């Protein structure tokens, strides 16, 4: 008999723009000891389903129809106090953004105690010892000291362990993990997922993993359910679903995930696979970064953000800058973009040292147009008060006339429309505000603005990190086409090794402010020199179709 049974669940939200049906007729079940993955893109309703079954929907959310039963108990008809008993003791949940998920002004140990006391797993005298034991159960070293810590003092990975300790403190039977590794570094991500898998195995838990990452689903789960726009599209064994998906949507998802041995065009559905352009990489270096250094003074501490970094980017070449958070890649790209002044070093562009002109004055420098940036968060990079047209026109108005100031209004209008066509943005969206555009549309506006002045070097700062995998496939292809068409060079900053391999000719790996390894993309990915690169590659979740996916239960049986 299944532990959790959901039949025809329907959830709707009352919003300013009317009623939104977030979940429409979903039927799922989780057996004892089984791990189910719910996979989908944004808006699929995967998180809402789990909030609904735990009855912690936001105000304005309502379960319209369906049945939810857990161990025979009807969760829809249970009273609020019965639900409060079930939460934490029978069913637990962990969320993304672990630091925000903890009370910022309460010691983490006390927070675990609160849960233990609430479900009568301890009395006041033993509470502290039990809390420390719960922390040790999630492999936190020096648990007795960490007990007194506040969330802001702990790293993201450590915070997530505390959240897991909180969730498992009262020995629940079902664990729901809602995107537990989003925002964490790839090595931390692996550590956290391995920990969760181990705990599930040890305690014989059932689990639901909600994720957009097919690799995680394939690697850690027994069964997979695919959701799209509130509906369940397909479900079955992990092995079967990924190696031989039935539904076209699942097929599209698997195809669009960047993985080894696959070129950028193959991310797209077959009918859109035009021949990929081939760039001729020049010999002349366009950008030469020499001994670039940046040091910050913060509260009396010296932080060496970038230490003596040297690399180059040649004409029409695409170089990937890879590393985890804090490695200095964002600071390096900010310096190359002349948004930040280096403490030492040279930035040679077409032979001229850009570092000689201070960042404050670079905005009006004639060379400004030649270096542009595509931002990670397209939404944040668009002025909320500007229409898409205004956003794209701004660089044209300031620098569009090849060093003679800006373009006139009529010329600007034509050029903006030309650019919209170039990036595949429908012209009638140009008069919309950013909040009225979808994620993919905002990304296109950002790209159109960046290429408006036909720059020679384009830095792309995690341009697809926030996008759904299907949109990412389209945008990556767009970037490849634009590069060939406009003869640009790319510096592609990312933490996602699979994406970098698709687009880059050479890869530079950074760690702790210094370059650890650099070389041709294939070489770095298949035969890395340094241990660090090897650990990065090992930690990246393996997208399906590469390995035969094995869930933890089957693994334990081996």
């Amino acid at each position: 008999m299944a532990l959790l049974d959901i039949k025809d669940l329907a959830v709707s939200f009352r919003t300013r723009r009317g009623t939104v049906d977030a979940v429409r007729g979903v039927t799922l079940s989780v057996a004892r000891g089984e791990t189910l993955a719910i996979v989908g893109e944004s808006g699929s309703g995967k998180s809402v389903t789990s909030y609904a079954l735990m009855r912690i929907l936001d105000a304005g959310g309502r379960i319209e129809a369906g049945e939810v039963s857990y161990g025979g108990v009807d969760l829809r008809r249970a009273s609020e106090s019965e639900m409060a008993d079930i939460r934490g003791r029978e069913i637990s949940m962990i969320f993304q953004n672990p630091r925000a998920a903890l009370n910022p002004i309460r010691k983490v140990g006390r927070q675990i105690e609160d849960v233990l006391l609430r479900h009568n797993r301890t009395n006041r005298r033993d509470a502290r010892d039990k809390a420390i034991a719960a922390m040790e159960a999630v492999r936190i070293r020096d648990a007795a000291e960490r007990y007194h810590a506040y969330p802001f003092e702990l790293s993201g990975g450590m915070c997530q362990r505390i959240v897991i300790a909180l969730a498992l403190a009262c020995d629940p039977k079902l664990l729901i993990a809602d995107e537990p590794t989003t925002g964490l570094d790839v090595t931390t991500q692996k550590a956290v997922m391995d920990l969760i898998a181990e705990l599930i195995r040890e305690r014989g838990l059932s689990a639901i993993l909600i994720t957009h990452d097919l690799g995680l689903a394939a690697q850690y789960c027994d069964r997979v359910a695919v959701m799209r726009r509130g509906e369940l599209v397909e479900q079955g064994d992990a092995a079967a679903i990924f190696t031989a998906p039935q539904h076209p949507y699942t097929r599209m998802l698997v195809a669009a995930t960047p993985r080894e041995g696959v070129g950028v065009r193959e991310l797209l559905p077959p009918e859109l696979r035009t021949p990929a352009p081939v760039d001729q990489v020049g010999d002349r270096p366009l950008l030469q970064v020499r001994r670039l250094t940046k040091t910050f003074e913060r509260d009396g501490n010296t932080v060496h953000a970038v230490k003596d970094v040297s690399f180059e980017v040649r004409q029409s070449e695409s170089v990937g800058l890879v590393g985890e958070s804090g490695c200095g890649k964002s600071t390096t790209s900010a310096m190359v973009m002349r948004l930040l002044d280096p403490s030492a070093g040279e930035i040679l562009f077409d032979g001229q040292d850009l570092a000689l002109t201070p960042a404050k004055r670079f905005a009006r420098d004639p060379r400004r147009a030649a270096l542009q940036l595509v931002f990670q968060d397209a939404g944040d990079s668009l002025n909320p008060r500007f229409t898409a047209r205004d956003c794209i026109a701004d660089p044209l108005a300031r620098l569009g006339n090849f060093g003679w100031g800006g373009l006139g209004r009529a010329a600007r209008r034509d050029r903006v429309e030309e650019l919209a066509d170039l990036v595949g943005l429908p012209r009638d969206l140009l008069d919309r505000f950013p909040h009225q555009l979808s994620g993919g549309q905002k990304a296109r506006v950002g790209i159109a603005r960046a290429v408006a002045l036909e720059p020679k070097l384009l830095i792309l700062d995690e341009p697809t990190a926030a996008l759904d995998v299907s949109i990412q496939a389209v945008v990556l292809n767009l970037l490849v086409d634009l590069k060939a068409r406009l003869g640009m060079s790319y510096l592609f900053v990312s933490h996602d090794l699979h994406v970098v391999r698709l687009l880059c000719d050479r890869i530079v790996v950074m760690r702790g402010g210094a370059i650890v390894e650099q070389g041709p993309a294939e070489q770095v990915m298949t035969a890395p020199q340094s241990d660090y690169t090897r650990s990065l590659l090992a930690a990246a979740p393996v997208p399906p179709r590469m390995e035969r996916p094995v869930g933890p239960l089957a693994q334990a049986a081996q």
Partner: protein
Amino acid sequence: MADTTLTHPAATSLRHVAYVLRSNPVTGVAFAMLAVILAAALLGPALAPYDPYASDAAHALEPPSWRHWFGTDNLGRDVFSRVLVATRLDLAISVSAVVLSFVVGSALGSAAGYWGGWTDRVLSRMFDTIMAFPLFVLAMGIVAALGNTVENVVYATAVINVPFYARLVRAEVNIRRESGFALAARLSGNADWRVLAFHIFPNALPPMMVQVSLNLGWAILNAAGLSFIGLGVRPPTAEWGIMVAEGANFIVSGEWWLAVFPGLALMFAVFTFNLLGDGLRDMVDPRMRT
């Protein structure tokens, strides 16, 4: 799905204004109340049934009747006419004070928030100094020092309000200084001052609109409070605060209408401005457009 008609920008703005008025009934009511106040301010002297300054000793201290809707005061002047005519003065004082403090406060606050460093430190200490005085006390001090005129009431009110705008703008500018669109503006060739003036500051406007409407209310209360203790406006000028002060002497003997009607007018005006706050903000914020 896509709307392909190209509408004129002015028409879209007007449509948005209408949408905001319709969607929140409170905003609609607030604007109706504002219309009443503006009408009283503009047309007051023309509509007043009696001369607000004409004394008539024979008819002093008459309670409200059909002849005198709000009764007469101790000099026989018609209270209704005086309340009506006072609208113009009170409104003029508060609007000029708020405009002045908005302009000065925004400029200083933007500079402090964008460039930081010593500019920020010096300006912040200045604002702290002003805010160190209980504000009404400072207004008292300024008006007493500079002289009892309406202009000085305006200046005093403006000075004590500058720190509110400055701090608000400073915080809003600070938040947005390193945001994506500010950096993108620099990449597009905008000099620092352009980024501040055309990209960052306009985005700080919506929260400031709420502050502006609150301030309009405070400014009126401030001016009225000052006249109540004898600073600023002098008799026989018709101003709500001074009318309440003069009427205070008669309340304990039961002649309530001298003080109550101007007081109610004060409350009506301030209440209107407070209600306006959210509506004004919604009109200025593009994210409210669907």
